[in-house]
């Protein structure tokens, strides 16, 4: 067994063990912290599958932003942690559940083992048409050019998510701001950390977005890093979340999908197909769309984490 194979087996065992911890850990808080570790380990697995773009997304969104969301929720749910005895499942039900889950896992494992060595693939087609987009990263080309309708609709899902979360606000907080107010005296350690990290993080986020055209990276990954920076500054209470009724915020939330859709409709008129890009103009157009998408992701993710408005609106 080579070193790399040994590392693979070790990584697989580690991912499985941490996943088991998130299911069986004694308290929700411990389980949530386990989940963040799990996400980071999983991004290493993605690197071993040569899917660096996915690894970046998993680390930034799957582990990072989801981690903040879940840890915040676990902290606020303290006091509801213990399971009342009457809600716990009986031993027999647990046994049946375990049997069912083993069956599902075994069936999936069999499918994995029976997959042909060379599966059906769209890689040749992607590479063949890649020069027409002017991009160097085939994953970005699939996201923004070949399957652009998917990506646009996914932005719409994010906006719907924000609408859903905001709809859960209590009546008197309607249109108000989520999260904590700006602190008179921010906690010094957190404030120092946020002030040091945010400028560097913004630079990294913009860089990851920009290189995404040719290297691993792109709107999702860059936008998630930018979102994390805004979240850190809000957590340090150097600034506060905007009011849900703010016009600029609503504009920012829909800017990405709106520009994307407008470009798609324009393609129907100019380039002869819905979401078609005119030849030669594809790359600048793609970067233009991606810029707005990155901005929208950077605004949407913190709003989803911040939750429904919890302060009365200022008039």
């Amino acid at each position, binding site marked *: 067994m080579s070193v790399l194979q040994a590392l693979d087996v070790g990584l697989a065992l580690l991912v499985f063990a941490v996943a088991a911890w998130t299911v069986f850990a004694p308290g929700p808080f411990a389980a949530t912290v386990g989940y963040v570790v799990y996400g980071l380990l999983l991004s290493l697995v993605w690197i071993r599958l040569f899917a660096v773009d996915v690894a970046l997304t998993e680390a930034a969104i*799957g582990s990072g932003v989801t981690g903040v969301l879940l840890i915040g929720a676990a902290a606020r749910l303290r006091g509801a942690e213990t399971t009342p005895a009457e809600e716990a499942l009986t031993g027999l039900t647990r046994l049946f559940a375990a049997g069912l889950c083993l069956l599902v896992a075994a069936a999936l494992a069999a499918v994995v083992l029976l997959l042909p060595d060379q599966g059906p693939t769209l890689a040749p087609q992607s590479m063949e048409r890649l020069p027409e987009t002017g991009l160097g990263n085939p994953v970005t080309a699939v996201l923004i050019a070949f399957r652009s309708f998917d990506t646009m609709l996914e932005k719409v899902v994010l906006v719907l998510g924000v609408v859903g979360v905001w709809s859960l606000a209590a009546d008197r907080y309607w249109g108000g701001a989520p999260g904590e107010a700006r602190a008179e005296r921010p906690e010094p350690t957190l404030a120092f950390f946020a002030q040091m990290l945010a400028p560097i993080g913004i630079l990294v986020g913009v860089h990851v977005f920009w290189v995404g055209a040719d290297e691993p990276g792109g709107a999702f990954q860059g936008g998630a890093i930018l979102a994390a920076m805004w979240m850190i500054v809000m957590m340090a209470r150097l600034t506060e979340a905007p009011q849900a009724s703010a016009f600029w915020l609503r504009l920012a939330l829909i800017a990405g999908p709106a520009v994307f859709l407008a470009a798609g409709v324009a393609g129907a008129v100019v380039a002869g197909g819905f979401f078609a890009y005119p030849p030669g103009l594809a790359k600048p157009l793609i970067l233009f769309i991606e810029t707005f998408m990155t901005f929208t992701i950077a605004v949407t993710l913190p709003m989803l984490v911040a939750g429904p408005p919890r302060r009365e609106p200022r008039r």
Partner: protein
Amino acid sequence: MSSATLAGLVGAALVGLGLYGVIADPQPLRKILAFNLIGSGVFLVFGIVARKGAAAGLSADPVPQAMVITGIVVAFAASALAVALTLRLFEETGRATLRPDAGTKPPGDGAVAE
């Protein structure tokens, strides 16, 4: 066994683990966590389909990769909505339980004192 097959088997095991968590743990937050485990297991199984579709000088098929990236973002949006629902339930009833007959506090507007 190749590293891709190994990752696929991990994905299968994660789906099983997550499914058990969704069924067996009554707490909503734990169910959300377990549901995310199922999701990442499915993504991983899809990831090895991408790896097995390596061709044209690429080490993995870009189409499944792009779909997994989209999936991760959508899974996050769904988790955020589920967490918001759980927290609202907790504020309303003082308990985070999915049992319909759970005790309720006197009805208010659900606002917590800050």
